[in-house]
């Protein structure tokens, strides 16, 4: 893994103070000196350890992409726009209750509910919004609890905080739902586990979510309060192009604002992220787009993932369809564009095409492709 | 004036320890006993802020002739009663000399704030090297056996008297303990005092 001897001080100097923190939550809870509070990472005291897991697990501290890829997939990090993929489908849930609650196709909740039922997992780390619609990590152990977590919050939730709160001796099988940064952190955690947390070999299933950017809760929520009473909101949505809005569905009506109004509340760290499709998961799930309302685009990456999807189909709770070619092309274009934008933002920040901040361990030629135009 | 002899004129006793160990009570008892034996005594303790976990040193100067200032001159201690090992070494550094006699309780009290405590054996060796005679008395251990670390200082008082390095007898000290400790407390403290005398005899 990362052969850099670095700790909390470097975490702050290289990541947090540099505006790279995505709010994934990998550093908190296992470390008593770092906590997440109101959308920020706060340090309570100075730690003297030179070589800490906070740095090793942070997806925005130096990451050896090849090593993570080897750990998860057994192959080095390649140049695919959407990362290592076995299959790409369109999927939607056939479970009416879940479909109603789901953001698009309800695929995530359906797969997790199945995994719980089949005792493939005992607990799922999800994100749940509270009454005020502030999102935090949550441990769901039943279908009912899963349903409470359905729906996107569009904000950084430090969800991995919930994973790391599982006690060391715990042997429960775990599923984790996360954004690209969180899934990458999990890859680093699996490669170099902390001794005081539960064994990451117990993580049996990782579901990644497509992500364009995340909102900063500490600045977004005061704005949300101006739009509506957050306790009345039931769903947030960002419909695909040609729409250009952020929609808030409340119990009584819908508020629709221009995405430009939301941009000030986006976490600036997201501009340096090049993983739109959560490349290190078992399965990655996103919206299929406005031409296919109610469907998810699903990228199956590992045998664990494909076995689960097959099982779901066999049980009749999931419907799959081939992803139309145009749709796939569009997906790849968006993902590549994302990588290039991130590459540019990173090299603008470092002033050096060779210094890619947190991105390391790339094979020959991969970085060069991104610097072309 | 006392008919007893003083080995040196004036005679310097130092009691060194850590705030909270009961240094001050100990020096008060020794001072009172010396007064009753007819000597001119000056006793000074470091008080106040230093008491909260810091080093505490009591100086007792004894004379047959006149009242002196209490603080021992550099390098002129005659007896050091150390309630804690590094504090004993600290006192030897400033006030020790080739003739000094040391009685020490070898139970470390760790400083707060993460300063490293040195190897205890090294400390004990250094103490022994810097004195003419050293006796180790496991007072805290015995106090814990009696059920409360609070007896440590009275045990050491017993050792100090039992060592016969000061012109104080057990007969002079007991009434002083009786005056200070009422009822049930007295029994336990007399027992602790006796234990201390026993420990020094076997040290």
């Amino acid at each position: 893994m990362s052969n850099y001897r670095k700790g909390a001080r470097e975490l702050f100097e290289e990541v947090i103070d540099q505006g790279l923190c995505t709010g994934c939550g990998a550093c908190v809870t296992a470390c008593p000196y770092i906590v997440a509070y109101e959308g920020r990472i706060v340090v309570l005291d100075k730690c003297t350890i030179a070589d800490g897991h906070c740095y090793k697990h942070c997806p925005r501290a130096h990451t050896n992409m090849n090593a993570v890829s080897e750990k998860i997939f057994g192959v080095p990090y390649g140049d695919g726009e959407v990362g290592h993929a076995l299959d790409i489908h369109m999927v939607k849930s056939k479970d009416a209750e879940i479909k109603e609650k789901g953001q698009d196709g309800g695929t995530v909740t359906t797969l997790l509910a199945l995994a719980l039922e089949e005792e493939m997992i005992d607990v799922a780390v999800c994100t749940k919004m509270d009454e005020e619609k502030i999102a935090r990590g949550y441990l769901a152990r039943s279908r009912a609890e899963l349903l409470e977590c359905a729906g996107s919050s569009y904000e950084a939730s430090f969800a991995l905080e919930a994973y790391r709160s599982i006690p060391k001796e715990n042997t429960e099988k775990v599923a984790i739902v996360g954004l690209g940064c969180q899934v990458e952190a999990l890859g680093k955690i699996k490669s170099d586990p902390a001794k005081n947390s539960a064994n990451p070999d117990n993580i049996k299933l990782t579901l990644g979510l497509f992500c364009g950017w995340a909102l900063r809760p500490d600045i977004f929520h005061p704005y949300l309060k101006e739009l509506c009473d957050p306790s009345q909101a039931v769903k947030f949505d960002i419909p695909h192009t040609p729409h250009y809005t952020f929609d808030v569905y409340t119990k009584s009506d819908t508020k629709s604002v221009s995405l430009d109004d939301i941009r000030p509340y986006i976490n600036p760290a997201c501009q340096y992220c090049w993983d739109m499709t959560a490349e290190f998961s078992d399965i990655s799930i996103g919206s299929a787009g406005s031409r296919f309302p109610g469907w998810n685009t699903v990228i199956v990456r590992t045998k664990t993932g494909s076995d689960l999807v097959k099982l779901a189909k066999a049980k009749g709770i999931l419907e799959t369809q081939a992803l139309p070619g145009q749709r796939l092309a569009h997906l790849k274009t968006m993902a590549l564009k994302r990588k290039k934008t991130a590459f540019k933002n990173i090299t603008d920040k470092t002033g050096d095409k060779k210094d890619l901040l947190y991105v390391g361990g790339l094979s020959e030629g991969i970085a060069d492709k991104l610097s072309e135009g | 004036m006392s008919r007893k002899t003083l080995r040196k004129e004036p005679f310097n006793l130092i009691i060194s320890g850590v705030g909270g160990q009961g240094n001050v009570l100990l020096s008060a008892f020794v001072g009172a006993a010396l007064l009753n034996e007819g000597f001119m005594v000056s006793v000074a303790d470091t008080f106040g802020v230093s008491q909260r976990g810091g080093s505490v040193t009591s100086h007792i100067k004894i004379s047959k002739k006149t009242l002196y200032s209490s603080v021992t001159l550099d390098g002129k201690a005659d007896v050091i009663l150390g309630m804690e090992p590094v504090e004993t070494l600290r006192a030897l550094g400033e006030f020790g000399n080739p003739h000094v006699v040391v009685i020490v309780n070898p139970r470390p009290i760790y400083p707060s704030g993460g300063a490293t405590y040195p190897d205890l054996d090294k400390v004990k060796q250094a103490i022994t090297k810097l004195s003419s005679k050293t006796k180790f008395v496991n007072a805290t251990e015995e106090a814990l056996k009696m059920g409360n670390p609070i007896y440590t200082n009275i045990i050491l008082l017993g050792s100090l008297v039992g060592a016969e390095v000061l012109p104080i007898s057990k007969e002079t000290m007991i009434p002083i303990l009786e005056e200070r400790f009422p009822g049930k407390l007295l029994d336990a403290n007399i027992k602790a005092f006796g234990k201390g005398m026993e420990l020094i005899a076997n040290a």
Partner: protein
Amino acid sequence: MNKPGAIVLLMGNEAVARGAIEAGIGVAAAYPGSPSSEVLTTIAGVAKQMNIHAEWSVNEKVAMEVAGGASFAGIRSFCAMKQNGANVAADFLVNANMTGVGDAGMVVFISDDPGGMTSNNEEDSRTITKWLDNPLLEPSSAQEAKEMIKWAYEVSEAVNLVTFVRGVTRISYTKSNVVLGELPEKKEKKAFFPDLWDMYNPKKSKFTSGPFPIFHKPLHEKLEKAREIFERSTFNQYMGPEHPELLIITCGACTSYCTEAVDELKAGEWVGILKLGTTWPLPEKLVAKHLSTTKTVLFVEEMDPFVERNVMELAASLLPATCDLTFYGKRSGHLAPYNEQSTNLVIDALVDILGTTYQARDLSYDEEAKKAIQIVPHRPINMCAGCPHRATFWAVKKALQLDGRKGFVCGDIGCYAMGFTGPGFFQSRTMHAMGSGAGVANGLGNLRQFGFDQPVLAMTGDSTFYHAVLPALVNGVYNNSSFILLILDNSATAMTGFQPHPGTGLLATGDPAKVVDMEAVCRAMGADVRVCDPFDLEDTTKALLSMIKKDGGTRVIIMRHMCQLVKARRKISNKYRMYVDRERCLGDTCGCDNLCTRILGCPGLMVDREISKAAIDEALCVGCGLCADICPSSAIIREEASDE
């Protein structure tokens, strides 16, 4: 007690108290302040028997005013304080020297703290006495302190001025042989404020300090009268040859350092020591006489070159007769104008001036000893095991960090003064006089218009609250200053020795007292008030955060939990027995990094070196349970303790 002629071991403070009692005082007032606190405690212990009103006043200004009132009504009165007390009382004193005292004298004992062992500052209070044009005495031992206090009443009544007796830590706290004097007969003390038309004492019927030019001249005349009395005082003594090669002029605690240094160097045949017991006004004729017997003078005194400058001023006025004199002291750099003096320091000065040598101990031993102590660790002060302030500071640290706007604490004086060091997690950033925490916070809380948005917290203890914070709190509410006052109510004036105060329900004599209800006072002033138990960390941190977010106006949180040492005195034991689960403890590895021993730093915690993990030190732990709440691995276990 009533054994005139008996020899007892008394510390200076006790001897001072005895002196005041032997002088027949009727009123004694003080505020706790090391190194003077024991004076009033001793007097209060026998107050009833001796028909004395002894009180802990809320601060030294009030204490002086209490004593002043008694003196105006013909009752001998007494005050004791540390050096800072004189500052607090100064404004009363610069008026009292104009009004004079009543028929009965008033004596003030000030104990300075050279080296600041128990103080927040280092200050020589003698200059205040000179500034006030009042007489000053300096004892050199506990016995002399007792005698001087008694004599000070005669002086005070002879010249009709408050008379000061100045001690230092070594005088106050050193115990030595003292011969007891006679106690006053138990006759009725009669207090009476002079009649307006008292024909026999027309000047004594009022104690007002105007019109000033009229009262300032008599003040100087009174001082002159004191000087004449001092010329004849037996407290000024000379020891040595008639024509010494070196004349040492010394006073106070330094007297014995000088005599012992001269003894140690066996220089008695050519060094003379003039010990002054009356240091202001200077007994000029006496000093001039001794100056004429020598060519070289060394001044030895603690802190400011007070006597040094006054004698040099005298010498200048005697020119050309004194033109051959060489002066050594602080000005020449032989002794420092700060920190304590000692016999060793005087020996060093003499060795230099006389050109002799001195070796305290065998050279090779000296070398070895110096090497050996290099392994001795620094032992910083800490709060006691079980101290509620530790819990308060922990909650404050967390709340301020979570808030994230770089908030801070304005500290104050007491055990919680350690807030500016490691044990208090470096939370306190300002520290001045008693009550200055709230005062400075007032100022910082009014800087909004300059873009200031950092949360401001002020800390005070319960005793300090009544002492000096009340005006600051009124000021905050009235001027709409935005800060949070934390009152750390541990039911004691802890740092100075657990003296009672208006919140504790007890008087100095141990009798019950009316409690001045802290919350009611704050609410009546109009502040927003909450009460928390700091050991309930979660609740306290939440309360702090919510108060910090309120962001305006003067807010108060009372952190109420009894001081651990007060609990011990009252035989109240804590609920828990603590131990460390070695399996769970991470010790010095990532995920912990010795959080409990390195940062929380409670003396009850230690590192088990063999396994590099935390352990409980049974000899020091008091079972408060705080460490269990902060351990990130839940490795510290607390069990309900069985009754013992």
